[in-house]
């Protein structure tokens, strides 16, 4: 047992838990892939790659680029940290887009056919919410700037 533990690299309970996990997941997977096994597998792998190697690097690079680009202008920057006043509205707007892009971009879905509702308003709703978020953020930043100026004086 000790040998097994050492070779395996963890407590036997760890092995049992994972084997139970694979048994259940494996059984569910056989049911899951019944109709189109390759497509389901592609979706699972695609989900991981799509998030970990596409979406996340994209937003990380965007965030890093903004920080890097603005850092070069450091002397002109106001004294109050500003990045989150840009990051938060952008991130929230992007989150709404990530969740609702099929409706916002009016992709070809069954939506209109099934519900008789129009997909037209979603783009405008999203833009309006985005605008409101940036407005709120700008107002909050302006208030903080004013408070900082007063404190200096």
């Amino acid at each position: 047992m000790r040998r097994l533990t050492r070779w395996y690299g963890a407590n036997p309970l760890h092995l049992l838990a994972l084997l139970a996990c694979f048994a259940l997941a494996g059984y569910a997977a056989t049911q899951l892939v019944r109709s189109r096994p390759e497509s389901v597998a592609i979706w699972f792998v695609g989900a991981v790659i799509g998030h970990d190697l596409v979406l996340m690097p994209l937003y990380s690079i965007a965030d890093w680029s903004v920080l890097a680009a603005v850092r070069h202008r450091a002397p002109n920057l106001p004294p109050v940290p500003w990045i989150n006043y840009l990051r938060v509205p952008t991130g929230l707007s992007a989150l709404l887009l990530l969740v609702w892009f099929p409706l916002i971009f009016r992709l070809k879905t069954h939506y209109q056919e099934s519900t008789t509702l129009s997909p037209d308003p979603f783009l405008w709703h999203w833009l309006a919410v985005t605008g409101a978020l940036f407005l709120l953020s700008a107002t909050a930043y302006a208030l903080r700037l004013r408070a900082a100026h007063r404190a200096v004086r």
Partner: protein
Amino acid sequence: MSDADQPEHAAEPGPAERPQPAEQPRPAGQPQPSRQPRPAEEPQPAERPRAAEQVRAAGEPPITEKSPVPLKPETVEKPETGQRQGPAQKPDTAENHGSVGRPPIAEEPRSKRPPWRPARPQLPRPSARPGQLARLLMPAEPPPGPFRRSFWRSPVRGPWLTSMLGLILLGGITILFVTGLLSYASYNPNLGGGNDYTSGKGWLGFYLFSWPTDPTWAYQLNQGLHVTLGLALVPILLAKLWSVLPKLFEWPPLRSPAHALERISLFLLVGGGVFEFATGIMNIQQWYVFPGSFYTLHFYGAWVFTAAFVVHAGLKMPTVIRSLRRRGLLRELRVDTAHTVPEPPDVSSLVPTAPSPPTISRRGVLGFAGAGSLLLVALAAGQSIGGPLRRTALLAPHGQVTGSGPLDFQINVTAAEGGIKPEETGNSWRLTLSREESGTSAPVTLTRAQLLAMPQHDASLAINCVEGWTTGNQVWTGVRLRDLARLAGADNPGAVLVQSLQQHGGHATLSAGQIMNPDSLLAFRVNGVELSADHGYPARVILPASPGVHNIKWVTTMTFRS
């Protein structure tokens, strides 16, 4: 990653803190069972520079030089670093290794030497070979890029943030699992006949209980919670995945069989999680591009995800408890960006070795994700509540109010989509009531006029969709299903198969409870007017507390069984 083997840190500890021999060289990611044994005295070139980096990161991070002095002494990592590396962390190290690929210390033959060094020569041959192979394929030194720990710079990454987000997800996903399972039960899948969407009843297609028809809001609450909470967890999931991304690039990629198996389970966890959220979100927007039936995919996908989720939560729970105990929530919530410093280096390999200056605090990250959740809920919950609040659902599929007429409420299948031809619903339309058992009374065929001549009842009920939206209460008028059962000669029916003119999916089997409820109607009118074609003219079923799709429209036959 611990640098307990660095003499710089060994200088301070008192007698109680003297490093144990077995403790010293156990930094995560360093001693690899799959690696070649090294003579104990041989310096480890790969580890030296990294360890040195760590000392700088923990002791003299660029951040602490530039940032103001932290207000609270607890947030100052520097003085703690030396002590933290010592035996104070010993139980942590042991536990954490338990889940990342090392046997718990208690099981080790505690000799003077670290377990992984003397163990090597005694290993059975077959396992030594993959070790050599692995060493050939994977140099000890990670390739440049994300595989190097110095690549990851955010000072807020660390076990505290990951644990906090993990704990929120644990609560949230548990609710999603329960509401999902209830949603499955609400179809009464045991009755067959269009109720079971989980292709081929296997072990997981089990029967839970007969779905109740009371309280009438049960299904609305369940689906509203499932869908709206699912939306709310999207930013939490994204933040959690962001917080652990360095783990994807761990080096070496496989340390031991335990580590390999755990990484496979993490693939199921992340793949399954993103799959479940993606299919759910696409389904509520009726974007059916996923490979198969939504019900089957979302149901079995959930089991794959749940299997990995339960094991992951179990294995990580000690780490979560430890990390959150070490830095209390209230204490951490008082730390602003300027005073945010990395956590002390630990075995989690999440804490950056070369952190950049903080641009956001930990409370800022939680607030950011929480704001995302609130925003999604605020812009969607109205469709699950109905009434005047529907207009607040600006970004939700069923947030639109089409008008104020008696027929202006949400639908999900139009007559055109259902393939309903006007000639089928005209004067030639008949309702056929029959019993499944042979040798019983002949089928009863009724015209619409005959049905309207029967005692009519009102019921104020909402149609609630599996997609999480509601029509809000409408007043339906029609005959009770139990009266129709009696007419068919089934005084004590066990179930009824309802079929319709709808070409795809227009049938369901209703339970005895659904038939006998006095509010269960075959409705002909709604809000005082005739049903429209899209609302199911000439007759539709309306049930309390049931999945919307069981309110069959354009009904033609009802087959009762005992």
